[in-house]
């Protein structure tokens, strides 16, 4: 397997990377946006994620054993976001710009009825500990299953299931308090 992958011509690797990029640009951007809380940093994070992914793509393919590479991409974004906060010694300074997101996704009537509740949910997500917030972003914004999330976070499937369960419970308490 690894022999075959290592013999791939560069043009083929580039084509496969291009396919990966097209398939997951929205995933990486969504993760980055909900993780850092604003569009400008989300764009930077997305760019850096794909540049770093390109540099390590061949090795990732060799080591993936045919498994999907989305968790690997999200893990890169996760590490870069952690570095960003360490460099700047800060958490997201602004709340998520939910006006843009909510307006894009809901009709006017739904907005009037549900906007407050959705805003409370988004605010609550920002109050969660980092690992719980990330797990929820991966599950609900990206639609990743437990196994994918476990790979992205470097945890076991069981620990990830518990993490998500606790994150949802804690968020419910925050929202309904």
């Amino acid at each position, binding site marked *: 397997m690894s022999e075959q992958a290592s013999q791939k011509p560069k043009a083929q690797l580039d084509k496969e990377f291009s396919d990966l990029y097209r398939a997951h640009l929205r995933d990486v951007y969504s993760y980055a946006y909900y993780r850092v809380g604003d569009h400008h940093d989300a764009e930077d994070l997305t*760019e850096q994620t794909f*540049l770093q992914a390109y540099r390590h793509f061949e090795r990732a393919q060799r080591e993936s054993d045919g498994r999907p590479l989305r968790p690997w991409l999200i893990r890169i974004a996760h590490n870069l976001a952690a570095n960003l906060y360490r460099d700047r010694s800060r958490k997201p300074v602004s709340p998520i710009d939910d006006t843009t997101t909510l307006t894009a996704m809901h009709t006017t009537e739904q907005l009037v009825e549900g906007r407050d509740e*959705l805003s409370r949910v988004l605010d609550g997500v920002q109050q969660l500990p980092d690992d719980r917030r990330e797990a929820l*972003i991966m599950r609900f*914004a990206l639609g990743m299953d437990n196994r994918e999330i476990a790979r992205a976070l470097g945890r076991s499937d069981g620990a990830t299931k518990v993490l998500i369960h606790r994150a*949802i419970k804690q968020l419910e308490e925050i929202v309904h308090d």
Partner: protein
Amino acid sequence: MTEAAPNFEGLLREALAPVEPPADLAERLESTLTSITEMAADELEAWELSAMRDPRNWARPAAALLVGTSAGAALVLLRARRRAHGSPASLDGVREAAERAVADLGREARKLLGDR
């Protein structure tokens, strides 16, 4: 285990709806990746075709590295321009953007150098 409150999960799914990346991000990123892959590939191909035993050709990998670095530089300069454009048109803003660009360039170059 996670199915305790399906309504709440539906709400979460709505609140955390996927976010479409801006169109210019997709274009910019695609063109950066294209530059890196095409330019570096050209240089590497030329290097491979040259006589490997001739020490005078050993400078070719360095040229390919520089091409890759140039692509990285193009990216950070684009970013600096975008940042300067998005901030108030003051000298401080431009200087700050330029300083960030230089820092970014150093970081990109270190990454590329460290990986080859």
